[in-house]
C-alpha cells in the first residue's frame, strides 16, 4: 500500500465506527494452515480481542491470494481490507482503538524493538523449520500447503513457496544455518523475552499492548502445534514465566467468550 493510500485509508477509517460484521480471513484451519501463518493470525485475533473489537474468523483455501500484501491474515472491515498486524494496529488506532497510547516515547521504542525481535527471530525460525528442514517440509508443509488443489498444481505451488522462502533465508544469511543453530536462536530470543517480561503480568505491567498479542500469537501456536519434532516447543517450555504469560492471555481473552 502506498503512503498516500495509507493516509487515505486512515482518514476513511476514522470516519466510521467498528462494524459488527468485521471478518478475519485465514487459510483452512484443519488441513492447510502452517505454523507461521497460524501464529500471525492468532496474534491479530489476540490484538483485536484485547481491543474489545469483535471479528468473525473465516477460513478460505485461497486466503493468501485474497490478501492485499499476500500475507496472512487480513481483515475486512466495512469497505476496507487491511493485512498483517502492523497495519491493522495503525488501522484500529485511526478508529480510536489503541493499546499503546499510555506508553511514553521510550517505552514505545522498546515495544517496537521487541516486536521486531519476535519478527526477526521467531517468525524467521518458524519459516526456516517449515520450509528448510527437509523432514518438516516433506511430511507437513508441502502436503498441507498444496492440500486444497489437485495434483500437480498443489505440488507446484508448494515447491514455489519453498523456493521463495529458501531464497529469503539465503538473503538474510540464514541459508547456511543448521537446525540446531536455529533452535539456539529461538532459545536466545525466548531468554530475552523472558528477561524482559520478568514477573509482570504483561510486558508493560498491567495493560496488554500489541507486543503481548504478537508474543502470545507465536508462543501459543508453537506450544500447541504438532511438528515432526517437539524440540521447538521444548525450548519455550524451559521459560516458566512465558508459559504462564500464554496461559494468562488464553484465559483472559479466549476462554471467557467461547464458553
Amino acid at each position: 500500500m502506498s503512503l498516500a493510500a495509507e493516509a487515505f485509508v486512515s482518514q476513511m477509517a476514522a470516519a466510521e465506527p467498528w462494524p459488527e460484521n468485521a471478518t478475519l480471513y485465514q487459510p483452512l484451519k484443519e488441513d492447510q494452515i502452517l505454523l507461521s501463518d497460524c501464529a500471525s493470525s492468532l496474534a491479530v485475533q489476540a490484538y483485536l480481542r484485547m481491543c474489545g473489537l469483535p471479528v468473525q474468523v473465516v477460513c478460505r483455501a485461497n486466503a493468501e491470494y485474497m490478501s492485499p500484501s499476500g500475507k496472512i491474515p487480513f481483515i475486512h472491515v466495512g469497505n476496507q481490507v487491511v493485512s498483517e498486524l502492523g497495519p491493522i494496529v495503525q488501522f484500529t488506532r485511526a478508529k480510536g482503538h489503541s493499546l499503546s497510547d499510555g506508553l511514553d516515547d521510550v517505552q514505545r521504542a522498546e515495544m517496537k524493538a521487541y516486536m521486531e525481535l519476535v519478527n526477526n527471530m521467531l517468525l524467521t525460525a518458524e519459516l526456516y523449520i517449515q520450509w528448510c528442514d527437509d523432514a518438516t517440509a516433506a511430511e507437513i508443509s508441502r502436503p498441507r500447503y498444496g492440500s486444497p488443489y489437485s495434483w500437480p498444481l498443489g505440488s507446484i505451488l508448494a515447491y514455489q513457496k519453498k523456493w521463495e522462502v529458501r531464497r529469503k533465508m539465503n538473503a538474510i544469511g540464514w541459508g547456511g544455518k543448521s537446525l540446531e543453530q536455529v533452535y539456539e536462536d529461538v532459545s536466545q530470543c525466548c531468554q530475552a523475552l523472558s528477561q524482559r517480561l520478568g514477573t509482570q503480568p504483561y510486558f508493560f505491567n498491567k495493560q496488554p499492548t500489541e507486543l503481548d498479542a504478537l508474543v502470545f500469537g507465536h508462543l501459543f501456536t508453537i506450544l500447541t502445534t504438532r511438528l515432526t519434532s517437539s524440540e521447538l516447543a521444548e525450548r519455550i517450555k524451559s521459560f516458566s514465566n512465558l508459559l504462564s504469560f500464554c496461559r494468562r492471555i488464553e484465559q483472559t481473552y479466549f476462554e471467557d467468550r467461547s464458553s
Partner: protein
Amino acid sequence: VGSNMAAAMELRCWGGDWGLPSVHTESLVVLAYTKFSGAKVTVSPIDWTWKTITATVPELLCGNSAVQEPAQILNFLRKQRFNADYDLTARQGADTMAYIALLEEKLQPAVLHTFWVDAENYANLTRPWFASRSPFPLNFLVPSRHANTALSRILLTKGEAPLHRITEVEGKIYSDAKECLNLLSYRLGTADYFFGNSPTSLDAFVFGFLAPLHKAGLPSSPLQSHLRQLDNLTRFCDNILTVYFSTESPCKIAETMDANLQKLTQLVNKESNLIEKMDDNLRSSPQHKPHRPDPKPGAKSSSPA
C-alpha cells in the same frame, strides 16, 4: 600492534573515507566493538586487492579460525574476553537483542537502498567509490555485485506479493526507517551511550548503521536529512569518532594538512622565485629605467607629428 598477544587477530574490512575508519556498515560495527572492548586487532583493508571479490567482509582471522558476520565476530571476541557488555544486566542484554533486531528489520533496508539502489547516489557516490577501491578488472564487477545483493535482499525481505517491484516497497521502507531513527533518538535521549557511561555492542551496531549515513556526501537522501535533524544521534556518531577513532583520524587530517601546506609552500616559493626573476629581469632589462625618459621624448616628438 597485536604482536604481544598469544594469538594475533587480523580484521579484514573495507577501508575508510569520508572521515570514517570504514565506509562499510558491517565493518564499522566490528571496528567500533574492537575499540569499545579493547581488543587489539590488526586492521587490513581489502581495498585494491582481489579480496574485494573473494572475501566476505568483515572477517576476523585468529590463528586457524576465520569468523564472518558482525554478530558472530562479536561473539568470538566476547569468548576471547573482549567483552564490552560485561556490565550489562540480563534485562539490558535482552534490550540489546531487541534493538539490534529493530535496526535490521527497519533501518537496514532503507540504508541499503540509499547507498546501492537509489540511482543518483549509486552513480555519483557508491559505484565510483567501490570501483576506485577495486583493482582492474574487478572495478567493473564489485559495485554491481553489491548492488544486486542489496536489491534482492530488500525485495526478498520487504517485498510484498510474489511479483514484487522496488517502487512498491520504497515508500514503506523509508517511512519505517525514519520511524526507527526517531525511536533510537527517543531511546538515546541526552546520554552519550545507550547503556550508562561506556559503549556496548548496541552502540557499535547503531554507530555502524548511522555513521555512513551521517558522513557520506550523498547527492540525494531523505533519510540523511532526517538523521541530521536528530541532533543527539549525529552527536552520538561524532562523539564515538573523536573518542575512539581520533588517534587515526587526526593523524590523517594532520597528514593531509601537512601535504597541503607543503604544496602551498612550494607554490609560494615558485611564485616568489618567479616574482624575483621578473623583478631581476625588469631591473636588468634595458627598457627599464634608462629607457623611461626615452619614450617621453619619443612621445613628445610623436604627438606633435
